[in-house]
């Protein structure tokens, strides 16, 4: 699998330093640079546009308060992924996210086939049935293109736990989608 957005990439930290010095335009540029990543992690976790935006906004507000602690653009990307993941976990613990029932999931899975143009949408819906940690691990792997050791760093979990979450998550998704290995 090719890395969609690797953890480490050539850095241009000028905006970061200017934002840390209180330059709002620079902070606006930082938001625009990373907003799709943050919003997408929250969106894939919650499958709810409004709450995903709410979480994404909170993440950037937290970033604004802690800008002085961010050392580089790579550190910023890592920090944003980690804080977004933590906020998603907090949100799931509050129980505000909608649970897709087994019946709903089965209905969607029955409709899916190889030529279904809505397949990706259905996969996204299936993802909602996974436990939070598995969902985040799979999101980091397939949205962000992170390697398991990078996912472990972001989600603060051992490598074997990450591999276990990925394996179990994929198995469950395959089963629900009726896909044979």
């Amino acid at each position, binding site marked *: 699998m090719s890395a*969609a957005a690797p953890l480490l990439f050539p850095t241009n930290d000028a905006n970061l330093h200017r934002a840390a010095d209180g330059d709002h335009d620079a902070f606006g540029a930082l938001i625009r640079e990373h907003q799709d990543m943050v*919003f*997408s992690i929250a969106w894939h976790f919650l499958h709810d546009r409004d709450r995903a935006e709410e979480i994404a906004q909170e993440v950037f507000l937290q970033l604004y308060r802690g800008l002085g602690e961010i050392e580089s653009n790579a550190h910023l990307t890592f920090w944003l992924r980690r804080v977004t993941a933590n906020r998603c976990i907090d949100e799931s613990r509050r129980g505000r996210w909608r649970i897709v029932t087994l019946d709903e999931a089965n209905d969607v899975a029955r409709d899916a086939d190889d030529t279904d143009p809505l397949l*990706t949408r259905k996969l996204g819906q299936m*993802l909602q049935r996974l436990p939070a940690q598995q969902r985040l691990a799979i999101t980091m792997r*397939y949205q962000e293109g992170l390697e398991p050791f990078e996912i472990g760093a972001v989600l603060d979990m051992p490598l074997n736990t990450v591999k276990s979450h990925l394996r179990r998550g994929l198995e469950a998704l395959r089963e629900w*989608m009726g896909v044979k290995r």
Partner: protein
Amino acid sequence: MNFEDELQRALARKSAPDGFADRVLSRIETPRHQKSWTLRRIAAAIVITASLGGLTAHQIIEHRRIEEGERARRELMTALHIASAKMRVAQRAVVHD
């Protein structure tokens, strides 16, 4: 179907809603602005309170100083009256003798 490719497609990044960055920035500027105004109000209240306190203290001290001066003047006048009366008594005694 390559399942992992489909999963990667399903989990592709989505665009944040239009105006997202502006909404975040407005949430940053508002509290800062409010904080600034709150600090200014507190500073103004402290200055006014300190000024009023200083003025009141000055008036109390001035009032006490005037009162003490008045009391000293009255005591001096009383002492002069007493001395004057004693002098008259002594003067009469000397004249009679």
